[in-house]
């Protein structure tokens, strides 16, 4: 079974430029998460999708961040414009569903490491 796929793995951009990250979850997983992970910290949730619906985007900085999950499969996370403080690892995870709260195991991709200069 293929795992969660993310691309690109690394991205270097100058501040004020746009950037996009792509995620392909495990086949059949309805729930998709985007996390931000700063160095030396645990992941911080940005947005959660149930199929194509963003059910929790309360922690997504909507002035510059946007996300979409067309057809309830692949997802894209975009930053426009990027700031120096956005340098971090962006993780995508998926799970079969979210019945029972956090009972379902989340499966993580390798992440995209973003460096904003």
């Amino acid at each position, binding site marked *: 079974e293929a795992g*969660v796929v993310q691309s690109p793995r690394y991205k270097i951009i100058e501040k004020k430029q746009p950037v996009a990250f792509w995620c392909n979850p495990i086949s059949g997983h309805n729930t998709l998460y985007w996390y931000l992970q700063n160095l030396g*910290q645990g992941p911080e949730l940005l947005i959660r999708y149930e199929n194509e619906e963003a059910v929790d985007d309360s922690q997504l900085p909507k002035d510059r961040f946007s996300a979409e999950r067309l057809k309830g499969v692949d997802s894209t996370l975009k930053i426009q414009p990027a700031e120096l403080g956005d340098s971090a690892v962006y993780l995508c*995870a998926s799970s079969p569903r979210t019945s029972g*709260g*956090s009972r379902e195991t989340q499966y993580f991709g390798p992440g995209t490491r973003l460096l904003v200069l």
Partner: protein
Amino acid sequence: AQSVTQPDIHITVSEGASLELRCNYSYGATPYLFWYVQSPGQGLQLLLKYFSGDTLVQGIKGFEAEFKRSQSSFNLRKPSVHWSDAAEYFCAVGDSSNYQLIWGAGTKLIIKP
């Protein structure tokens, strides 16, 4: 406030020695508890999880963890570490009504040959 504390930023252990990584939590509801491992260039992988029942949980790669409610702890153990165990380990807590996990800051495990 809900929180997860991993007191050790990094731990160095000799190969073949035993390991214990500490995790303490502060959580209002009955917690679900998780340990994940993150190897360089890899995604986070679930080692084990505890929901209820037997407080000693077995996981993958020879890891186990013990839930101690009285101490609000969920420490991860392994009797004999291998060089391939070098990675960062994260403890996380959730519950039955909240999909969102609260994560610790991680402990980096260094293995001495």
